[in-house]
């Protein structure tokens, strides 16, 4: 399969901060590819390099088979970019924004209407409204329409769901699924772990380095240690107690429970319970669970940090 995005050894430094260090990545055509990373991991820098807004210090990038330095002009007319910050004209109406972006891409709204029809019908009742007065979810939909209006082959979405409510987020991902059916390659970044499982493949970005690239199932497969969800009356005390347990792997709060990974391969809930009973904790409940993508990410982050300190 041809690759839609090819990144080889890209490094980008801002004065003293290294935003990306030796990043390599290959995304196939038609893939829905997720980049997961905390704030400041380097996601936006990577996007800006791919959409030719920024030059890498080292390494090279190829987008849709075109070199990001030599053929930047060719790339620009074939990608749709949606920056993390809402950046449409707030003082233009929904309709005017869409028409403006269609014109600058030398096309018309009518020409590619069927591509956005699905999303735009939800915006239609507000088409005379100024973009600045839309709700967060509506803004995202409009931005997506504007990025799609010239039927790009590659869609670059930088944190499209940040600051959007849960319902709109789910809708947004459903829309991405439908766009994928139209054979548009989608590269999407997000700080939300739950969204990672909706991608074909994901890359974990941490401090400018890619920790792992795999399918969501493959990523969870990386997690081999036994994992338990533990509950008690005092979560904070529970965390400190579990962390001081000699066999503790990663221990972190997960909603109302604490996820605890043990470094031994075979261990039963009773053993942990026995350890915790020595403390003053009450209402202890322990349950063995299957690792999710977030558990894997936490574990990857932890080992990465430990490797750095060694």
């Amino acid at each position, binding site marked *: 399969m041809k690759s839609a995005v090819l990144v080889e050894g890209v490094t980008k430094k801002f004065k003293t901060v290294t935003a990306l260090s030796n990043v390599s990545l290959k995304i196939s055509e038609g893939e829905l590819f997720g980049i997961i990373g905390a704030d400041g991991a380097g996601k936006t820098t990577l996007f800006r390099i791919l959409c030719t807004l920024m030059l890498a210090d080292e390494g090279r990038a190829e987008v849709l088979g075109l070199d990001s330095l030599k053929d930047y002009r060719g790339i620009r007319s074939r990608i749709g*970019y949606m920056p993390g910050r809402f950046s449409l004209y*707030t003082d233009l109406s929904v309709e005017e924004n869409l028409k403006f972006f269609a014109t600058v891409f030398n096309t018309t709204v009518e020409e590619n209407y069927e591509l956005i029809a699905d999303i735009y019908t939800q915006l239609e009742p507000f088409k005379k409204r100024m973009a600045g007065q839309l709700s967060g979810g509506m803004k995202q939909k409009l931005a997506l329409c504007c990025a799609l209006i010239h039927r790009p082959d590659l869609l670059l979405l930088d944190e499209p769901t940040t600051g959007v409510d849960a319902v709109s987020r789910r809708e947004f991902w459903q829309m991405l699924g439908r766009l994928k059916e139209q054979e548009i390659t989608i590269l999407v970044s997000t700080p939300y772990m739950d969204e990672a499982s909706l991608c074909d493949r994901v890359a974990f970005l941490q401090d400018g380095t890619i920790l792992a690239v795999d399918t969501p199932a493959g990523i969870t497969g990386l997690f081999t240690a036994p994992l338990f969800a533990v509950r008690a009356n005092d979560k904070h005390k529970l965390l400190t107690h579990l962390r001081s347990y000699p066999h503790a792997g990663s221990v972190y709060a997960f909603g109302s429970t604490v996820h605890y990974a043990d470094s031994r391969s075979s261990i039963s809930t009773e053993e942990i319970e026995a350890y915790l009973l020595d403390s003053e904790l009450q209402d202890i409940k322990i349950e063995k669970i299957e690792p999710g993508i977030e558990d894997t990410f936490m574990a990857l982050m932890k080992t990465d940090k430990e490797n750095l300190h060694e």
Partner: protein
Amino acid sequence: MRVIGFLLQKEFLQIFRNKGMLPIIFIMPLIQLVILSNAATFDVRNVPFNLQDLDRTSLSENLSEQFTGSGYFQLTGESSTSSQALDVLVGRNADLVLVIPEGFEKELMRGGSAKVQLIINAEDGFSAGVIQGYTNDIITAFNRDLIPQLPGSAVAAPQPDIIVRSSAWYNPELVYVDYMVPGILVILVTLVGLFLSGMNVVREKEIGTIDQINVTPMRRYQFITGKLLPFWIIGLGELTLGLIIARVAFHVPMLGSYWLIYLVAGIYMLVVLGMGLLISTLTDSQQQAMFIAWFFMVIFTLMSGLFTAIESMPHWAQNMTLANPVRHFVDIMRRVMLKGSGIREIAVPLAILTADAALLITLAVNRYRKVSD
């Protein structure tokens, strides 16, 4: 072309939709034109003056009447001692004290010469000079017309004098409005052009839309044309409005050609817009852009010869004003409107403006980059 056309349409939509911007563009210039051209005047009238008549004779009274009747001075009080007179000056109840000493009439009747003292507040040297000029005129006239008629006058017949009769050309009645309005029109056009264009691109940077624009295949020349053309049009529209007001409300003469004014204004707008765009590309926020634009605006205005004559500046400052586009346009406007100068007479300043325009637009276009480091 279609892209530029649509970009223009978008800019105008945004400008006219901006409720804060419209008054700035159309109302502010009107107010400024009306207020500035009436307030900014070198006329010194109704100078408050204090009389210290220690002679109290009909002749001394006659002299003081010459002052009050001249129209330049207004009697605000009398004093009897020099310390009182000083108090009046310090308290700013008078800018001039006329002291007529005791024996003034007696001296003159005897055929001798008498002295009067004039104390002028010279905080503002310019006004003091004007006041002194007025008082000299009055006293000279007094000497010429009155003293020879006195009975004991030694000078029986008037001496043959060289009499200077002056008449002012190009502004015969010395109407200051005629002199100020052409210059103020320049300031207005500059203000609108520099600030609006300076704020515009940086605003797109601030709200992040510049990124969206930069990833489009839109070419640099398209973007810049689309950004500058609206303000070029607004600037010339503003000038038209100003010229109409100058004609209708102030009756400022227009001896030259309107076409010439528009030709110069068209070039001048490119200078201003190039500068605005350059500021826009060098700054990251509207605040920074505003501050820089303001800085240049103040320097340009003060060194334009609008309020203070360039000839009275020190030599180095005079040379500096050659680099000031506002100076050249003010100069051209006055010459064309009041003197009817043609293109040949204004060739030098026009050439300088054209060179400025080419330089600034080139610089600004080169500074604008679609890719950041």
